């Protein structure tokens, strides 16, 4: 059985050569050498036509086995070589992952905008509209319509920037409330609004005073609005601004456009109420003024104060930001020093 021996020897030879192959190219040439059209296994098989019919199947089987074994060896070796090549490539491609990334430059909203937007969103969620109004107003809408007639003791000329005796820079955002109220048609539902914006006072700028600052006022007018509704609304606001665990307390106060009027304190977010320098040892921090809309204010806008009533509140985003972030000089908000502004990129 010369042919059988030949085949067996061929298989051993192929195994040895495949095992020694150093690269994919060499492997390919071995495949051609043994299994190609002119390859050695093929040429052995070609000699089968000279065999007896009895011998053919036996030898045919052996030849196929030898061919399959070589094929398996080849693909096994191929796999190994590919793995090695990949490994080598990956090793070569290794980089210093600790080098800095390419800089993405983004800006950030002003801290006052962040605060105002947060408040706007809270009230939008409760069905309020945001109405901005103009920064230059008439004396009439800024004062008279909020129940501050000419000789009212609470009306201090010193505090107002006048342009003419009749025109001024608004000292609060209330005029837009009066303007909206007189336009409002209660047939379309209650009036629920907040008015954010810049306001102006005749003050000399220092650490705690600014001739320009911001205000957000809110107002709800409908039938059956209660002072308890005001308390609940402000509680929500205080928790949103200063944290879930905060409580509020209402104290009697005076504003010409509300009656009753209250000042609202929030439990100190720094010490939790035990007393610290932020709350001046009282456990409470004053954050806003509020009250039930004065009937005169409603009547002046043509609203029947027997049928409709409601509440109003006002707060200063500048003051809130100072409290919340411990900013000790209000002028920081208007100097626009990047080193200040950038600190509020991280959401507080």
């Amino acid at each position: 059985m010369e042919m059988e021996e030949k085949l067996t020897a061929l298989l051993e030879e192929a195994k040895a050569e495949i095992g020694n192959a150093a690269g994919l190219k060499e492997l390919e040439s071995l495949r051609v050498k043994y299994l190609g059209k002119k390859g050695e296994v093929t040429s052995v098989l070609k000699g089968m036509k000279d065999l007896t019919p009895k011998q053919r199947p036996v030898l045919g089987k052996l030849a196929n086995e030898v061919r399959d074994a070589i094929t398996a060896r080849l693909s096994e070796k191929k796999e190994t070589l590919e793995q090695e090549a990949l490994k080598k490539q990956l090793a070569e491609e290794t980089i210093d992952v600790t080098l800095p990334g390419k800089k993405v430059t983004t800006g950030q909203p002003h801290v006052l905008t962040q605060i105002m937007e947060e408040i706007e969103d809270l009230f939008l969620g409760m069905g309020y509209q945001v109405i901005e109004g103009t920064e230059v107003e008439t004396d009439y809408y800024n004062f008279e319509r909020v129940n501050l007639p000419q000789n009212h003791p609470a009306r201090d000329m010193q505090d107002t920037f006048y342009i003419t005796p009749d025109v001024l820079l608004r000292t609060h955002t209330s005029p837009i409330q009066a303007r909206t109220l007189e336009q409002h048609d209660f047939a379309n539902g209650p009036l629920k609004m907040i008015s954010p914006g810049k306001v102006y006072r005749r003050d000399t700028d220092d650490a705690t005073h600014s001739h320009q600052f911001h205000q957000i006022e809110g107002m709800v007018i409908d039938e059956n609005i209660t002072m308890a509704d005001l308390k609940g609304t402000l509680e929500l606001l205080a928790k949103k601004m200063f944290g879930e665990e905060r409580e509020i307390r209402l104290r009697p106060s005076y504003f010409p456009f509300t009656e009753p009027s209250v000042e609202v304190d929030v439990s100190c977010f720094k010490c939790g109420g035990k007393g610290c320098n932020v709350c001046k040892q009282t456990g409470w921090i004053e954050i806003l003024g509020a009250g039930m809309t004065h009937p005169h204010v409603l009547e002046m806008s043509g609203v029947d104060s027997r049928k409709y009533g409601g509440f109003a509140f006002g707060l200063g985003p500048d003051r809130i930001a100072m409290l919340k972030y411990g900013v000790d000089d209000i002028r920081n908000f208007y100097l626009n020093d990047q080193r200040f502004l950038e600190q509020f990129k991280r959401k507080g």
Partner: protein
Amino acid sequence: MRVSVKWLSEYLDLSDIAPVELADQITLTGIEVDDVTLPSLTLDNLVVGEVLTAEEMADSDHLKVTAVDVDQEAPQQIVCGAPNVKAGQKVIVALPGAKLPNGLKIKKSKLRGVESNGMICSLQELGFAEAVVPKKAEDGIYVLPMEAKTGHSVLPYIGLDDAFIELDITPNRADALSMRGVGYEVGAILSQKPAFPEVTVSEDRSENISDYIHVSVDNSQDVPVYKMRVIKDVTVQESPMWLQRKLMNAGIRPIDAVVDVTNYIMLEYGQPLHAFDYDALESKTIRVRRAEQDEKLVTLDGQERRLNPGNLVITNGEKPVALAGVMGGENTHVTGATQTIALESALFESSVIRKTAQSLNLRSESSARFERGLNTAAIERALDHAAQLIADLGNGQVVSGVARVEAIQPESKQVTIALERINQALGTDLVMDEVVHLMDRLGFDSETSTRELTVTVPPRRWDIEIEADIIEEVVRLHGYNRLPATLPKSESIPGELTHKQQRVRDTRHFMEGAGLSQAISYALTTNEKAAAFSRVEGEPVKLDWPMSEEHQALRKSLLSGLLDNVQYNVARQNKHVGFYEIGRVFYPVTDSKLPREVTHVAGALTGSRVEANWQEDEQPVDFYAVKGILEEWFTVIGVSDEISYVPTNTYPELHPGRTAKVRWQGQVVGVLGQLHPQLADERDLKETYLFEIDMDALLDTDKEPLIYSSIPKYPGTSRDVAFVVDETVLHETVLSVMKENGGKWLKSIRLFDLYQGENIEQGKKSMAYSLSYQNPEATLKEEEVTSDFEQIKKALVEELNAEIR
């Protein structure tokens, strides 16, 4: 109003409540407390001493060596520098161990070798303000009355064994500008009826007021009530200690017994009084009238005031003797020689007093009370009480009768309110009895029917007039802490931002994503800055009476402010700055009293967009970096199709060759350009680029519905063209030539190369564009595209004299 708890205890039983707790209750129920002080907590080792001897110290021109009896085994030697120290005086001695409010710790010490075992104190050293210390004790030690017990604590004598509650009184609660008012208020809080001592005047019936004085007023609107009493045979002397300490601790300087009584009564009743030297009036007539134009009066402070008909004056029938409600006249004020006092108690119209006090800058305790209104029921009571006290302290007699003019009488008001109204306003379930009880605590009577109550409000609470006022009294006494917390149960309507508000927010987010930080600048600026960068006609809107040049006019552009911010940062080594601001600018309008307010967005960039790093070279800000931001923003807000840029050299603040007007639908909506290098130099800035766009113009349009267009199913194709043209030919011009001649399948045009320099003729430039073609309905045929593309090339040659390469 500084309230002495001891004084208040004369009306109420405060033995069960600590001052700090009382202050808390006052704050939560009625009136904000600014501060509570208890001086005795920090003051000890302060005793009454008797000066036995006071000798000049050998080698000093002002120090004295005293021996002071402080009720110890031996007198103490104390060195004292006060000029007024004398043997025989009772004085305030700080013994070793005492700590004074100014931080000084008293120890045994030696002054110039002489031993000193303590310190003889002035009132200032105990914490009294200079302005409340009696004149004669101003420059030295305070001398106690002889009855003061040697060795005992000095605090009771000067009223520092007390607690003081500083009330911050709002304009509506002027009733609490008096101790009696505070007594009622605290009584309501503690459910106690305050007890006030009865005052009876013992009059000398031998003479009648009409023998002395007759009063008249010109206008009862100005002076609804004017009353006067006369006290005769008075010796004007120093006030007793109890009176002095009450005044000093309330912040008022003791002067003499007459003036002190008027101030004391004002503190007790809230009723300002004025005492005249009767003989100096030189008349038996008092007439109250408006001042004449330029009429003159020398006031108590020695200043000559030039008056006008806005001021109200008290006259002796001819010439002014006092500025009503504001300040007395020098010629009639009480002196040590005064024997007969004419005492005034009146009600003056608040606005007249307010204007006078304001225009003469003479705000006083009196004028403040007139401005806020008075308890009409106290006008005569206060007068009676003061007259009796002046007589008692000066050994004089009150002349029988009151000279008076009164157009009004003190009257109670009645307010009727339904119980349901109270509960409806507060969200409570109070029953009638509870409300009646609350009114009773205030000292208000009420009558009830099944559903309503009618509250009788005495004149001492003149702030209460309408239902809402009663509701306020109910809720504050009931307690805000007992109020439920609910939300409005109104019909729910969606709250949403308007289209414009949403776009403003989108713009902010976009600008921040593009690397710009939001700035907020002052709207008020200098005249010059207010006008800069704006091409809108008219002077900026100016303040009538600015506080400073820095803030006197409203900006017409946001750019001056932003530039200030950039400069501020660059000067502080923040070299790479990118700001945007969204805010109002203000334009004067000729036929309107209000200016036009327009919302602008503006930006300012300087330094680098990208700093040099290990991967990239530095990318300094340039015109096109800023333009790129605007282009993308215009796409985001949906206006990019109709935006165009037109070169302009009409802004003196901007680089004439690097500035473009931004037009939208043919109208100018903004500007984009480089800060003029000269101005940049002045501000020490490198190349700085600016833009400012009128947002209202772009956003006031209706929201355009956004409709999806299908993704093309068929492949497109592209062609590149490169050519040389004159350097003056604008990209915008090339674009319009290409668009006009591009054929119907031309989809987009992209400039991919621009070159000038070597190999290109001087004055020319080489441009290369990539044109994309697309037919949404079918695959484009090569021939179609080729013929369209040839058309463009032809047009470039013909219209722009381009040389195709």
